[in-house]
Structures are given as structure tokens and as C-alpha cells.
């Protein structure tokens, strides 16, 4: 199991009021799974993503990522985990505007201490993998939304992470680009990547293989996707 969460609680302490964003969630994700995390805003899915992504610390419970108990880690150790084991794809791409596609893809390797020549080699390979071999030296503002997201995917892949975390990756894209991105994710999954994707769109979730639905800080359903069921609206966000 690549991700193992037991009785995970997250409480936001805002002084007077304590908000329980996650109320004891347990979840296991196997290697090579492709999971959609769904739910309305405020359901706790973003909190879960932040914790899964080692951006936030849990209040109670246990989180084991790739056989390492990360719930006991903090600060810089979490940064190292993010660098090596997690690939992020954000809704708003989060590319650095001054860097070329290549430069953006190089970033995680810079923090991993990969030497320059190898960095460029690997970044080029990752960009070619997402079909941007001819756009390597373009800046983000010279690219379309779909292309930007593909750069972001290349960046997420380049350190060969244990999981790929995508947070509404098609939220800012038109239908055509969304389809392109979903195709890339699917083929990555086919090649063996473990992907966890937060989305509130059912037709996007339809591309995944398992849907975990959140409501009020708890999982209300966790089922494998059968495409016709989604079409009939049997899996609800």
C-alpha cells in the first residue's frame, strides 16, 4: 500500500472556535491506483489533499506514505518528502512566470540537488513525455492553458514521485484541453503512476478508477468507478 491513513483528524484552531475539518478518516490507496477525491467545498477534500501532499500536518491519526510514517515529520523533513515522493499538479498551474518550460521542470531537481546536465536531460525527457518537446524554451505566458498544465505535469513527474497529486487540474481549462490532460493522466496511470485527483466534476472523475466522496469531514462513499453509473448520476458528489 502506497498510502495508508488511519483515523485521521484535522482540527483548525481559530482561537475561540475549533473547526474539525476531518473527523477520523481512514483510507488506503494501493500502488498504481487512480483515485478521484470528490466532494463539495467544505467537505474536507482539500484538507485531505494538503495532508496527503505533506503541505499540512494532521492533528490526530496516522499517515504512512510509501512505507514512511510522515505524520511525525515536520518542516524541512516534509519539504524533502514533497520533493522526492509527491508530484503536484495545481488548478492554476503555478508555473514560475520568469522561467521557461524547461526551467520550470528543472525546479524540483534543483531542490533535490541533481547536477545541471542531468537535470536538463531529465527535464527534456519529461517535457517530451507530455508532448511539449517543441515548446521547451517557451515562457508560460507564451503557452496555452493546456500546454501550461502539461508543463506542470512534466514538473510533477520529473523526480519520479511515489504519488501524483492533482488538485482540480482541469478547473481552469476548456473542454478540449481538459480532455487532453485527462488522456495524459490516464496514460501515466497505465504506465504505473499512482494518481490522486481532487475534482468536483463528475465527467472528470469518470476518467479515474475509484471515487472517494467526502461530506462534512468524513468519507460517505468509496467505490470503483463504473462509467455507466456515473453517467446515470448514481455517484453523487
Amino acid at each position: 500500500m502506497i498510502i495508508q491513513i488511519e483515523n485521521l483528524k484535522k482540527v483548525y484552531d481559530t482561537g475561540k472556535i475549533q473547526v474539525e475539518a476531518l473527523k477520523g478518516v481512514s483510507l488506503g490507496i494501493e500502488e498504481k491506483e487512480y483515485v478521484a477525491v470528490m466532494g463539495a467545498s467544505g467537505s474536507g477534500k482539500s484538507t485531505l489533499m494538503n495532508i496527503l501532499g505533506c503541505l499540512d500536518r494532521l492533528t490526530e491519526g496516522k499517515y504512512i506514505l510509501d512505507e514512511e510514517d510522515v505524520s511525525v515529520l515536520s518542516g524541512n523533513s516534509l519539504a524533502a518528502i514533497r520533493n522526492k515522493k509527491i508530484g503536484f499538479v495545481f488548478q492554476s498551474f503555478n508555473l514560475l512566470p520568469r522561467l521557461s518550460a524547461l526551467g520550470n521542470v528543472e525546479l524540483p531537481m534543483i531542490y533535490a540537488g541533481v547536477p545541471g546536465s542531468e537535470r536538463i536531460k531529465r527535464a527534456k525527457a519529461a517535457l517530451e513525455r507530455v508532448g511539449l518537446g517543441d515548446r521547451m524554451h517557451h515562457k508560460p505566458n507564451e503557452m496555452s492553458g493546456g500546454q501550461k498544465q502539461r508543463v506542470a505535469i512534466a514538473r510533477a513527474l520529473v523526480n519520479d514521485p511515489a504519488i501524483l497529486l492533482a488538485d482540480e487540474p482541469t478547473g481552469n481549462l476548456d473542454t478540449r484541453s481538459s480532455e487532453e490532460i485527462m488522456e495524459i493522466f490516464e496514460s501515466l496511470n497505465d504506465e504505473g503512476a499512482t494518481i490522486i485527483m481532487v475534482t468536483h466534476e463528475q465527467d472528470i472523475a469518470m476518467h479515474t478508477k475509484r471515487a472517494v466522496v467526502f461530506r462534512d469531514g468524513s468519507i460517505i462513499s468509496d467505490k470503483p468507478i463504473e462509467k455507466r453509473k456515473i453517467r446515470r448520476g448514481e455517484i453523487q458528489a
Partner: protein
Amino acid sequence: MNLVESFKSALQSVRANKMRSFLTMLGIIIGISSVITIVSIGQGGKEAITGEFQDIGTNIINVQVKAMDTSIETRDYFTLKDAELLKEKIPGVEWVAPSAEGRGYIKSDKDSKFAMVMAVNEHFEELMHLELLEGRFINQRDIQNAKQVTVIDDISAKAIFGTTEIIGEKVKVSNQSKDIYATVVGVCKNVNGGMAAMFGDNMPGNAFVPITIREKVLSNHQISEMSVTLTDMTHSQEIADKMIRLLEKSHRNEDKYAASEGFTQLDTINSVLNIFTMVISAIAGISLIVGGIGVMNIMLVSVTERTREIGTRKALGAQNRDIMLQFLTESLIICLIGGIIGMTLGVSLGLVVGKMINIPLDVSPLVILASFGFSSAVGIFFGLYPAQKAAKLDPIEALRYE
């Protein structure tokens, strides 16, 4: 992230905001360049003055009437006899150059020039290192015969006659109510020549006349100073004491005279110049601090602007010290570039100003090193807080920042 990467990244960011970076640097540029200019000119000035003093000679003792003393009477002033007495009675005295002076004019029927009128003897040429351009200096015969001759400076000669070839011309040398006609026997370089740029057209001229005709030329013709050269300076203090005792004995007075060596004055001038340089450098240093605050300000803006970038970098695995290093190198680079520009500017400015006031520039490598050190220190000191602020950002909040 290593240093090379953070330097690359910082340079990129500086280049991306050219105008802003330049304006931020300006504070550092002004600070560094003014410190360098001032210190270099101060240093050069000190050396020029030292050089001049060494020119004048280190084997000179100046004997003066304490002019500040209100109890000084006419009989306390030196006479030509005193000068002879010193030379005859005190072993080790090479020659004595008494002088009296006053502000006055050199006139012809065409024109006139403001000048220092000095009644001197033949040793004055050597004493002041006068550079004769035409004719000769006042000699012993002029003095013995109290001849109405004069040696004037080149600036006055040109101002009045338009040329320095004026040997044999008659000029009127005046001081307050006194004036005489004197024949020009020589033209020398102006004594204050080095300060020409400072005075401009108002540079006073020089008119030297034999000391024996001082009563005809000078309203106040008292001899208040004598320059004495010694063959050997090793016992200068004892010789100076001896001279003063002899003068006191001959004038039958006490505590009216003072003797000083050239070097004592040099030390005073040097220490004044040092204080002057230090004070102005301190003021310039303040501008460096102001520049540093400007750097801090712009770095804080930069951190806020790039909050999302910081969040992204952290999500991708940047540790706090990576972010810290990134912003610290950025402020360091701004200050270092500013320091280099400031240094170049400071040295050029020093050269120009030094040329204008005729002081050779002395740019010590220490000053250059110090300015590098200083601008780096400013960069690190004022970059620390913004960099720390950036490093401490919470990745989730930073990623969410609009």
C-alpha cells in the same frame, strides 16, 4: 539548492525588474560613491599637504611673535638685527628669513591686482621653493641698498601686463596708505598656484620687496615671523629654546615668542583633515543605511508579490533555507552591483574633483575592499528580514495567495 543556482535565480529576478532594481541600487550607488570620493580626495589631499610640507623643508623652525597676546608691544617685534643675531650667536643655524606682510595691490597705470605684499630677504626664494619664470629674485644687494625693486607672480603679471616678460617695468606696490614705485626684477610662479581652481580670478597675487624697504610699503611693517633653517634637526628643540631665550634677552621680555617645527603644523593639519574626512564619510555612510532600507523595502514588496511563487517552490520541495538563500542572494546582488557601480562612479568623480582642485587622487585598495564589504554587509543585513519572512511563509497559505 546551492549557491550557484540561487545566484542564477537572483540575477534573473534582478533582470526581470530592471527599473526597480536600478532605483533600489541607486541608494547604494550614491552611498558608496560618495564615501569613496570623499575618502579618496581626503587621502589625496593629505598626501598633497604632506608633500608640500616636505618640499618646504623639514629643517625649518618658525619663530613667531605670539600675535594673539594683547600685551605685545612694538618693541617685542623682531628686527633685522635679531635675524643677524640668531645666525651669529646660535650654532647650527644655517640662515634666517624674516618677513613682514600685508594685503595690498600691484598697480600699473593700466590695471591693478590684489596681492599679498611680502617684505623678505634673499633666503625667501629657497624657503618657499619659488619658481622663477623671469629675471631674478631679490638679492643681498637689493637689501643692503634698500632698492625699490620687486618680484611679482605670474598671475598678476598676466593680469596687469598680459605677459610675464616685464623685467624693468615699473609697478606701484601698495598696502593701505603706503605705496611705492618699484622696478620689476623678476617674475615667479604664484605661491598659491596649486589652489588656483579654488580661488579662480580672485587668487591673490604676490609681490616681494626687499625687507629693508618694508616701512615704505607696509602700513604694519612689524616683523612677526622668522623662518630659520638648521643644518641638522637632531637638536632642533634645544636650538629653538636657545633662539627664544636669546630673543627674550635682547628684547628684555618674557613669554612673547613661540617656535614651531614644520611637522607640528603638519600633524595638526592632518588631524583636522582626518576628522573632516571621517565626519563627511559618516554622513555618506548614513546615505548607505538609507539605501539599505530601500533595499529592505523593495525586498519586502518582492516577497509579497511572489508569495505564490514561494508557495510553489515549497510545494516542489524547497526548504526554508532554500527560500531564505534565494531572497538573501537577491538583495546581496542588488547591493553588490550597486556597490560596483558606486565604486566606479566614486573613483571617476574623485578623479574629476581631484583634477579640479589639483589634488592627486589616492584610491587605496583598502577603500575598494571596504566598499565591497560594506555593500555586501548592507545587502545581507537589510535582506535578512525579508528573506526570513519569505522562508517562514506557510506553503498552503502561500499557494492560495492571490
